C-alpha cells in the first residue's frame, strides 16, 4: 500500500509517517509534501498512491488548489486540527477525516479500511470542497 502525506508542518508530517510505520511496516509512505505547488509537481511526475493524508490548510494555498491542476482519483483522508464545523461537513458528505493530533487507534481504523478496499473514484467536486472549507453555520 502506497501513501502520500501532504502536510505543511514538518513535525506533524513526520509523526504521521512514524505512526503508519508502526502500524504496518509494509505500508510505504511514498512522499511527504508541504505545499500545493510541491504536491502538483509530484503528482504530475508520479503515479497515484493508494491513499492520501491531506491537510486542508497548506503554506501556499488551500489543498483543494491541487485538484485544479492534477486529476486525482485515489482515496483521500483529510486531516485537520479541530474544526468542528468542518468535521461535521465531512460527516455529512461521508468523507473520511482525522483530527490532529492524530490518535493512533483512529489511524489504524482508517488504514485497515482502505487496505481492503479496491481503488475507487472518490473525486471531490469543488462545491463539496468549498462547503468543507467554509461550512455554513
Amino acid at each position, binding site marked *: 500500500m502506497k501513501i502520500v502525506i501532504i502536510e505543511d*508542518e514538518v*513535525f506533524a508530517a513526520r*509523526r504521521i509517517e*512514524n505512526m503508519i510505520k508502526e502500524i504496518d511496516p509494509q505500508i510505504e509512505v511514498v512522499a511527504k509534501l508541504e505545499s500545493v505547488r510541491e504536491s502538483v509537481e509530484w503528482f504530475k511526475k508520479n503515479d497515484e498512491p493508494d491513499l492520501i493524508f491531506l491537510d486542508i490548510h497548506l503554506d501556499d494555498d*488551500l489543498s483543494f488548489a491541487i485538484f485544479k491542476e492534477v486529476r486525482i482519483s485515489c482515496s483521500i483522508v483529510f486531516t485537520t486540527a479541530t474544526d468542528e464545523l468542518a468535521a461535521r461537513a465531512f460527516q455529512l458528505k461521508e468523507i473520511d477525516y482525522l483530527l490532529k493530533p492524530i490518535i493512533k487507534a483512529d489511524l489504524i481504523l482508517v488504514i485497515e479500511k482502505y487496505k481492503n478496499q479496491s481503488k475507487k473514484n472518490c473525486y471531490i467536486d469543488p462545491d463539496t470542497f468549498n462547503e468543507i472549507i467554509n461550512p455554513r453555520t
Partner: protein
Amino acid sequence: MEKANSNNTSNIIHGKRNTELNKLRLVFEQTPGAIFILDKDFKFEYVNPSFTKLSGYTKDELLNRSVGELFYHKDLPESRKEIVESLINGEKWQGELLTFNKNGSTYWANTIAAPYKDETGNIDGYIVIQQDVTERNRYNQELKKSEQKYRELSEMLPQTVYELDLNANLKYLNKAGREKFGTAYENTDVSVFSIVVPEQLERMKFNFCNVSFQNIPSKGNFYKLMQSDGQVFEAMISATPMIVDGKTIGQRGVVIDISDHVAMQNALRESEEKYRTLIENATDGIVIVQNGLLKFANQTMCDIMNYNMDELIDKPFLDYIDKAEHESLGLFHSRRMEGEQFSNILRSQFIRKDNIMITVELNARTSNYNGSPAGFIVIRDITDRLKIENELQLAKNELEKLNSQLEKRVKESSKRLTEARTQLINLQKENLQSQFDVLKQQVNPHFLFNSLNVLTSLIKLEPDLAEKFSEQLSKVYRYVLENKDNELVDLNTELNFLDAYIFLLNIRFVEKLNVKLNIPDENRCDKIIPLAMQLLIENAIKHNVMSKSNPLVIDIFVDDNNYLNVINNLQERPSQIVSTGVGLKNILNRYQLLKLTVPTFEKTKNQFVAKIQLVKNTSPNP
C-alpha cells in the same frame, strides 16, 4: 149827484179814512203774524189770512162765532177765563198760549191781546195778535235734550271737560275732571287759575281772555297742571267760547293728560338722540343709500373716504366703489332690495378722494327712509386690519418655519442621539465580542491542537525540544488566562508572551516564518492592549503564503512617533478563507472603547502595515 155833492166833504173825509183803513187792511192781510179782532162778545169780527192758516178754519167758519163756542164749546177753561177777565177789565194780556187748531192738534202761540174802546171809552172789542212759536219751542226742547246728551257724554269722557264763566270760575267739571282735580272742584265757582303751575299762570290768563273776550277758540295749549294729589302732569287744553243768543257767556274746554304722550315723545327723542349719538360716534362708516344715491353719511364715513359730507350726499354710491366690484355689489344690492337677508358680510374695494383704494366690509339692511326703501349700510375700513392680518400671517409662517426648523433640529439631534446610542450599544457589543474573542483566543482550539499536534510529534523525535515546547505552550496559555481581563498591559509583559508564542510558531513553521522583534528598552514600560501583536501575527500567517524559499517576514518595531509597527511582507494566498473579520476589528474596537488613538491598518503593494500607538505609562511606579 146832489147827494154826492152834499156828502162831498164827508165823502172826502170818508174817502180819506177808507184809504187809511185800506192801507191797514193790506198790512193785516200781508203780515205773517196771525191777527184777529173780536167784538165785545168775543165773537170773531175779523181774521187775517195768517190766522186762518194757523187755525185751520176758513174766514166764514170763524166770523160771528165766539172764541168759547168755536174752541171750547161754550165753556172756557179757567186759564182762559183769567185772560178774558183781564181783557174785560180793559187790560192787555201777553203770554204763550197752547191752542187747538181745527184738526185738533195744538200749537204754541206767543199771544198779545188788547181791548179797544170806542169814542166814549167803552170796550168795543179786542185785537189779538198771535205768533206761532211751536217751532221755537221744539227747538228749545231739542236744545235742552242736546244739552243733556252733551252733559251725559261729557260725564262719560275719560278726558276732563269744563265750563267757565267770564270770571274764569268753574261752572261745570265732568266726572273725569272731578276725579282728576279732586273734590274741591265738585263745588264749582272755583277759579280755574288755581290748577296751573304758577309760572304758567300769566299764559293761561292770556289764553283765557282770547277765548272769552275775543271769541278765538284755542286749538290746544300745553300746560303743567296740578292734580288733586299735588302731582303735576302735562296737559293739553282746547277751549271754545260759549255763546248764547249772540253773547259770550263763558267758555268750555277739554283737558287731555298728555303725560304718557310726552313721556313717549321724550323716550322717542332720547332714543333718536341715542341713535344719532351712536351713528355720529360709530367707529364704522354708516350710510343710507336710496335709488343708488347716498342720502346720509356719518362723519366716520367721511373720514374713511376723505370726503366732506357735502361731497358725498346725493352722489351715486357706486362712484366711490372700485369698478371691478360694481357687478357683484349691484347683484348684492338688488337681491337685498328684494328682501333677501344676508348674514354674510360683503368685502369690497372703495376708492378714497385721494384715489387710494381701501378694503372695506359692508353689512347692509333694507329699511324705510323718508317713506321709501333704502339701504342702510355699515362700512368698516379693514385695510389696516388686513395689513395686520397679513403681518400676523407672515409672523405665523415665520414662526412655523422656525418651529419646523426646530423640530428638524430636534429630530436630527434625536437621530444623532439614537445613532450615538446605537454606536455605544454596538461598541459595548463589540467589546463583549472582543472579550469573547480574547477568551476564545486563550483556548483557540485550532492553535492549541496544532500545537499539541506538533508536541506529540516532538516527544519522540526531539524530547528536549518537546519539553521546551510544552513550557512555552503553557506560558502562552497562562498569559492569556492572566490578562484576559486587562484593558492594557505593559509592553514588556506582552513581549515576554510574544517570545513564547513566536517560539511555538517557529517550531511549527520551520524556516518559513521570520518574526523580527526590535523594541527599545525605553518603550518597554509603555502600554498596549493584550494579544494585539499576537493577533496581527496570526492574521499574517492566515492570509499569506509561506515557504522556506519565500518565508513570511514580520517586522515589529517602534517608529519615531511612538507607534508600534507590525509589518509583514505581502504574499497573499490565492484562495482566501472567508474572513470572520474579527481579528483587526477586535483591535480597533478595543482601542475605541478605551478612547485611545485607534490603530491604522494599511495594505500597500508589498506590505501590510499595522500601526498601534503605544500608551505612555502614567502611573508613578512603572
